[in-house]
């Protein structure tokens, strides 16, 4: 269990979180939704250790798929992955799994948006760690590419099980990817699908409607 306790985070005078608590079961995929400025990305950055905070957040080895791929421009696809993992065999296998075999020697500038994001996903799975953080990684992709990314994500997840915390503003993405959805507003959890549906397993439509209701509050 990953437990965040009494998290307080402020940007100057603005308080984003005050005494925020969250427990995440290991191996689960949790989607975090909320309006812009509700602190979704801040939560990921706190967990990744990218921003200072007060409270108790376990020091975790995190992989992070950012909103933009953040690839090193002067390294090839393979070079970017080798920067994270020195095991060439594993890197080659990951390139194969990500469908990037033909692009292994390409530089980021030569790749399409979808291909770059594939590399970013491959990098995150190669790094592994205790938790994988995803900050709207598919938001800029068109529907077809997004579907391909989802399949790739599930395929890699199956081969490399890991706890996932994903931030999204797309309800469909949350329903599709996560087994638990949380809506945050003004630094508080206003909806948690685990609590809302208790022991029952909601249908996708029910879950979608409940999340939309929470977001409209």
């Amino acid at each position, binding site marked *: 269990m990953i437990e965040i306790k009494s998290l307080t985070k402020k940007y100057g005078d603005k308080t984003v979180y005050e005494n925020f608590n969250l427990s995440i079961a290991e191996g689960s995929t949790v989607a975090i939704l909320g309006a812009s400025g509700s602190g979704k990305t801040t939560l990921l950055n706190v967990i990744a250790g990218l921003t200072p905070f007060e409270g108790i957040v376990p020091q975790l080895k995190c992989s992070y798929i950012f909103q933009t791929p953040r690839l090193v421009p002067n390294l090839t696809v393979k070079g970017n992955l080798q920067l994270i993992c020195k095991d060439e065999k594993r890197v080659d296998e990951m390139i194969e799994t990500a469908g990037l075999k033909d692009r292994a020697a390409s530089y980021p500038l030569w790749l399409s948006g979808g291909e770059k994001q594939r590399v970013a996903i491959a*990098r995150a799975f190669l790094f592994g760690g205790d938790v994988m953080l995803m900050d709207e990684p598919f938001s800029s992709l068109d529907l077809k590419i997004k579907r391909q990314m989802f399949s790739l994500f599930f395929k890699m997840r199956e081969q490399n099980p890991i706890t996932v915390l994903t931030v999204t503003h797309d309800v469909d993405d949350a329903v599709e990817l996560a087994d638990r959805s949380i809506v945050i507003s003004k630094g508080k959890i206003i909806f948690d699908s685990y609590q809302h549906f208790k022991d029952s397993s909601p249908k996708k439509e029910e879950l979608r409607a409940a999340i939309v209701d929470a977001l409209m509050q």
Partner: protein
Amino acid sequence: MKKFFGKRKLNILFSAAAIFFMWLVWIIAAYAVGNQLLVPKFSQTMSEFFGLLADGSFWIALTFTLLRTLIAFIISFLLAAVCASAAALSDGARAALRPIVGFVRILPTLAVILLILRWTAGDRNIAPVIVTFLVLFPMIYAQLLASIDGIDGGLKEMAKVYKLSAREKLFSIYIPAVLPNTLSQTGANISLGLKIMISAEVLAFTLQGLGGKMQLANSGGYVATLAALTLMAVIFGLIIDVSISQLVRITDKWNKREGNDD
């Protein structure tokens, strides 16, 4: 007019016009002043200029000046690169370097030359190198640090999350990001180094150098020779600047394969 000439040809035309204008100012100034000890005639300066080209001692002096400039630049660049890398990787190093670099930057050049001449028992070859280093080092350090600080913050966060080592950050992110900017500034830095070197040679009376020759010409009242030597210094400064700019253009073409993904 733009259509007839094209942009490149038009730029060459403007440059030629500017050179013609400067030449005209010279001719008018020489005529107006009417004293060759103050403003030498263009024709006399040109005669001295071509005389220098045939003079072996001029080429020896030029070689020594260029060598000293290159040595001062290389030392400045290497030390600035090491210090900027340390400052980029450690806030403590950055804080420690701030007063040191600040001190070097404000050191008065003339006073330093006199002190160095005293310390080096009057060795007039070392003082200009040290003075040029003292001017170039803080400037190159500031340029490198500004380039490093300008590196995409997203990449820095990625490096932190994925726990890249200091060596990996330096060689995979920092150096490749800083290199194009650094190369484009190298020509201007060496040209400035040459300018400072000649000034320092004049002040230190370094005989085996352009500055020393200028000082000698000035002492003897050979103003046309002084003007010809100045013209030579300008021409060689320009040659260095243009040559390095061309080199940068070639590396730019090579770097076209790169780019940022954000």
